[in-house]
C-alpha cells in the first residue's frame, strides 16, 4: 500500500486516517528553532464531510487512500440506491447509498452531472454542481405584479426539497436556479 510522508503532503491529497479516507485541505509546518518539527494538517473526512485537525511529527508517514472523483450523470433512484453513469461513453454505472448521497438528494435531477467520489471503487460522496435548476411543485399562489416588494415565501421543488427566501411572484411550474451550497434561491431560470 502506498504511503505519503508529511513532507509530501499537499492539499487535495487523499489519505487514510482512523480507517476513513480524507482529503488534505491545509498542511502547516510548525517548528520551534531548537525543537522537533511538526506538520499540523487539516483534512476533510470524505465519508462524513467533517474537518479534522491532526498534528504529525514531521517525517511520519500515513497510508494513501484509493480515492478518485468522477463526473457522473444521475440516472434514477430505486428507493434504496441512486444510480449514476460515467460520462466517458463507457456506460458504466455505480449505485450510491443513502450515506453517500446524503443531503445532495435535495439537488438530484436526472441527466444532470454530479461529482461522485469513489473509494476503492465504491461511491462514498456525491457533490452537486454549485447551481442547479429545479421546478417548483408547490408554493403559495403568486401575487400578480409584485416584483419589487421584498416579501418572500417557501417553495417545494421537484426533488422534494423545500427552500426559503423565494420571492412572492414565483408560481408552481416555474424553474428556479438554486445555490446548492447554501440551499438558497438565486433567480428564476430563463425558460
Amino acid at each position: 500500500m502506498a504511503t505519503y510522508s508529511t513532507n509530501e503532503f499537499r492539499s487535495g491529497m487523499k489519505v487514510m486516517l482512523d480507517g476513513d479516507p480524507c482529503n488534505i485541505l491545509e498542511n502547516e509546518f510548525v517548528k520551534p528553532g531548537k525543537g522537533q518539527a511538526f506538520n499540523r494538517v487539516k483534512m476533510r473526512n470524505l465519508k462524513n464531510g467533517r474537518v479534522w485537525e491532526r498534528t504529525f511529527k514531521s517525517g511520519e508517514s500515513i497510508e494513501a487512500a484509493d480515492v478518485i472523483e468522477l463526473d457522473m450523470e444521475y440516472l434514477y433512484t430505486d428507493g434504496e440506491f441512486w444510480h449514476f453513469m460515467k460520462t466517458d461513453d463507457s456506460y458504466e454505472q455505480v449505485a450510491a447509498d443513502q450515506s453517500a448521497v446524503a443531503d445532495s438528494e435535495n439537488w438530484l435531477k436526472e441527466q444532470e452531472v454530479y461529482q461522485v467520489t469513489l473509494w476503492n471503487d465504491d461511491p462514498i460522496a456525491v457533490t452537486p454542481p454549485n447551481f442547479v435548476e429545479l421546478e417548483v411543485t408547490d408554493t403559495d399562489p403568486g401575487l400578480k405584479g409584485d416584483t419589487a416588494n421584498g416579501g418572500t415565501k417557501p417553495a417545494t421543488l421537484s426533488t422534494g426539497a423545500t427552500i426559503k427566501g423565494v420571492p412572492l411572484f414565483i408560481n408552481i411550474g416555474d424553474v428556479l436556479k438554486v445555490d446548492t451550497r447554501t440551499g438558497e434561491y438565486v433567480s428564476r431560470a430563463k425558460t
Partner: protein
Amino acid sequence: MSNWRPLASIEHLKQRAELLAQARAFLVARDVIEVQIPALARDSITEPDVQSIEVPGYGYLQTSPEYQMKRLLAAGMPSCYQLGPAFRHGEQGMLHNPEFTMLEWYRLGFDHNQLMHEVADLVDVLLGPKPYQRLTYEDVVGKSKGRGRDALDLAFAEACERLTPGRFFITDYPADQAALARINPDGQTAARFELVIDGIEIANGYWELLDADEHRQRFKIDSEIRQQRGLPAMAVDEAFLAALEHGLPECAGVALGFDRLVMLGGGAKALSDVMAFRGS
C-alpha cells in the same frame, strides 16, 4: 511561461533594505563590528532537531554562523555580528524557508539579561517601541517533568503561537534544552532566552557555555539521539572544540530571524511575502 516575478512586492523589498541598514547602523554605533563567515564549511552542528544541507565534496551549508564566530572570539575578535544567509534542510512553510537571513551577534562581557535589553533596543528601532513581557518556559507550557520531549516541543510551539499580540522574552529553559547556554545556578534551568513577537519566534540567545568538556558531553548526547532517531551522523566540529579549549571569552550571543522581522515590519503574513525569491 515561467513565472519570473519576485515573490515580494518592490515596496516590501525596499523596506527590507531599510531594516538591514538600520540593524547594521544600530550595531556599529555600539561598537559591534561586522564579520563575514563562509556559508559553506567542512563541519556543521550535531543538534538532532536541526538538519544541515550537505554539499558533497565540500561539507555543509551552515545552519548558523555560531561555531565560526566563536572561533573568531577565541582568537581575539571583539564583539561582532554577522548578517547573512543560514540554511536548514527540510524547513519549509509560512514561517520557514531552507535558506533564510540570520542576524547573529556576540557581546563580550554581557550575560543573557544584558543581551535581552539590547535585543529589545534593536527591535524597538526596527519595529517601533513597545513593552516587553518576561515569562519563564514553565509559565508558557507548565511543568515539564515527566513529559516527553515531543509533547513538550509541540506544547511549546502552540503556546508561543498564542502569545499574541505583544513581545515576550521567554527564559529559564529546562537544562536539557540548554543547547549551548550555560546552566543556571539552580542546576535545573539554562541561561537561554527566546523572543516571541505576535506569536512568532524571532530570536534565541544564550549566556554562552565556555567549558569545552561540557560541550563534548552535549555533542555526545546529540549524537546518541541522532542515532536513536535514524538521522544522519554528524561529525563533531573539532576546530570549534579546539577554540573552546584555547578559551572563549565571557560573552552572550543571540541569533535573530531577520526575514520574520521584516515580515512583522511590513504587516506580512508569510515569509514568502518579504523574500525576493524562493530557491525551491
